[in-house]
């Protein structure tokens, strides 16, 4: 059974205008019909450009944002828009790790009390037991437990992210949503944190939803990868399969933009340069959302939204790479 099932999740943010008589003038289609599953113990990578709805999706799953429509099912139980009290037990099982190691730790509180927070909030243990648990956690994530009384400002970015890991781990959750956990770190530090996350996964049987915009990072940690564009998943496949044979033109372009250590290999692969900017999620394009920028777009693309389909390698494209080319004439662009 899947640990997490996300079914046709939609999150729209209304846009209001006017100070006194507020009226709704539109909405941001942050997440627009996303379906995902996560098996226990697996890591699902979620990639996409800034603003494609990755973080919004993560927050919807974690119950931080109310969902507009769709369903989030955790361990067989529907946790969509649960009231706070009913959501509480699930908060123990679902933890979030945040992107910014500077912003996600309260600068006025000591590290020990930050890591003990989840235990205090869920009323676990006595003060003494919690203190010991925090020491163990700090040791486990590679921090010196003697630094219990320090402030976050006294740690480096990598160490702070370890504090974030320790906090996320405190309740022994089953799912950790990692919202770009290494984007703010130096490359050398990134590897340390990624390896730590991997070790912890093996040790505690964790399931990760791993969000990033760096494709090489995601490939390193993920079993499967979902590519998002403007609030929708356009491709979802096994990590290696996606990297070797991207089918969606957007995934192809995204992959071609990653830096490769071997310049010859990079040349062979070629670089797909996209034209134009990401359209506004307030007024997304009709049909396939990628069609105004797609090098393979045909007439059909502007009219009909392609479903996400295709066995083990899911693609939402009318004319996927390696599939049938656009029938008849090419798109107008």
């Amino acid at each position, binding site marked *: 059974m899947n640990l997490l099932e996300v079914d046709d999740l939609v999150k729209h943010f209304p846009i209001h205008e006017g100070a006194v008589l507020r009226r709704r003038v539109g909405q941001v289609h942050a997440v627009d019909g996303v379906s995902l599953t996560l098996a226990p113990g697996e890591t699902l990578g979620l990639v996409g450009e800034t603003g494609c709805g990755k973080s919004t999706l993560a*927050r919807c799953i974690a119950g931080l944002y109310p969902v507009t429509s769709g369903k989030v099912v955790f361990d067989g139980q529907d946790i969509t828009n649960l009231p*706070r009290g009913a*959501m509480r037990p699930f908060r123990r099982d679902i933890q979030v790790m945040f*992107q910014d190691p500077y912003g996600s730790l309260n*600068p006025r*509180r000591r590290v020990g009390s930050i890591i003990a927070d989840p235990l205090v*909030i*869920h009323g676990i243990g006595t003060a003494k037991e919690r203190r010991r648990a925090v020491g163990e956690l700090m040791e486990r994530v590679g921090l010196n437990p003697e630094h219990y009384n320090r402030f*976050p400002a006294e740690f480096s970015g990598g160490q702070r992210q370890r504090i974030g890991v320790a906090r996320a781990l405190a309740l022994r959750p089953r799912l950790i949503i990692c919202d770009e956990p290494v984007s703010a770190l130096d490359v050398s530090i990134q590897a340390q944190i990624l390896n730590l996350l991997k070790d912890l996964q093996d040790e505690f049987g964790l399931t990760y939803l791993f969000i990033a915009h760096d494709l090489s990072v995601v490939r390193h940690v993920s079993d499967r990868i979902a590519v998002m564009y403007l609030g929708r998943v356009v491709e979802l496949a096994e990590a290696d399969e996606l990297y070797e044979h991207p089918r969606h033109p957007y995934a192809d372009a995204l992959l071609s933009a990653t830096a490769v250590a071997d310049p010859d290999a990079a040349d062979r692969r070629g670089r797909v340069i996209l034209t134009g900017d990401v359209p506004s999620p307030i007024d997304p394009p009709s049909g396939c959302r990628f069609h105004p920028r797609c090098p393979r777009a045909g007439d059909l693309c502007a009219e009909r939204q392609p479903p996400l389909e295709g066995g083990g390698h899911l693609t939402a494209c009318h004319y996927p790479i390696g599939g049938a080319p656009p029938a008849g004439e090419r798109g107008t662009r």
Partner: protein
Amino acid sequence: MTLTEIRPGVVPGRTIAGRSPWALAWARIRTDKVALASAVVVLLLLVLAAAAPLIAQWSGHGPDDQFRDIGITDQGLPVAPNGTFWFGTDRLGRDLFIRVLYGARVSLVVGVLSTGLAALLGVAVGLLAGFYGGVVDTLLSRLMDVVLSFPYLIFAIAVVSIAGPSLTATVGVIAFYSWAAIARIVRGQTLSIKEREYVEAARSLGASDARVMVVDILPNLLAPVIVLVTLLVPAAIVFESTLSYLGLGIVPPTPSWGNLLSEAQGFYRVAWWYLTFPAGTLLVATLAFNLLGDGVRDAIDPRTERLFSRRRGLLRRRARDRRSAPASGARAAASDGPVTGTDGDGPGRREPGGDGPGRREPGGDGPGRREPGGDGPGRREPGRDGPDGREPGAHDDSTGG
């Protein structure tokens, strides 16, 4: 051996220790002579006020004792300062020194009490308004607007005419006027802090609203509130004096600085001490509180620059030394005058007229503002991720040219 060679075992003499933001603020305020002097004056006032009954007992002059034999001249006028009456006497032959001390008790109690009340109320209202937003915010914000737009003297007169002048009424009126200013600041801070990731992290852990407000937001509000409170205390003292002077505050025979001034009004031509000592004490107290408040603000919030700061002169001198060494004499000469935006500071780095009593841009906190120890590894300026996103003075903008 080269200069860059790293020799193991040779470490800098200064040990690198982590310090809390408060410890850093304390270290900063310790180097601020003005703030220290003000603190001494304030402490002295507090001690004298607290010890007023002891002093009265020791001198044998109660606050309301009238010395008609030695305290009033043959013409019926107050006696000038002398060995018995240090500040002279008042129109009824009472010891002015003792009365000023007793007045300090009233003034300080009113100042601290009313500001404390205002801070409690202001933080609570501002926190709720900022945190919940929406209708709650609209209602509370309008309430603040209403309070801030009241004509305070008319309001005070109205309250006193109904309730009668008393200590309680005075404290109430002052607190009523001060809380809205605090609430506004707190509301703004809360609005920005509640969007921080650590607040989201707390929510994702299942923390209640109350916990988020008290544990995660409140500590980050303390710095601006402390700064505001230290500056509101002297304002409250002056406010109390104003009310008492007008007969709306503390009622004689209880002395307060305000009603002492009011009594002295008819006598200042024949008894200069009668007006001078209460007024001087009031001035010294207000000044000390204000300068202390400034110092506290500098220490807690290093981003702001104080008017005519001692360090500013130091900063400018250093910048001039540095520039005049490699640069032409013309540039060195130019830096003697008011520094303008085109003066080699790097165009636009400093506001035009940046030497005037305005604020400098953030980031302009040069080395003079920093902790004497500089930034050793492993130690950061507390402001780095302080609640208001201030940046440490990472560079001295005068070297930009």
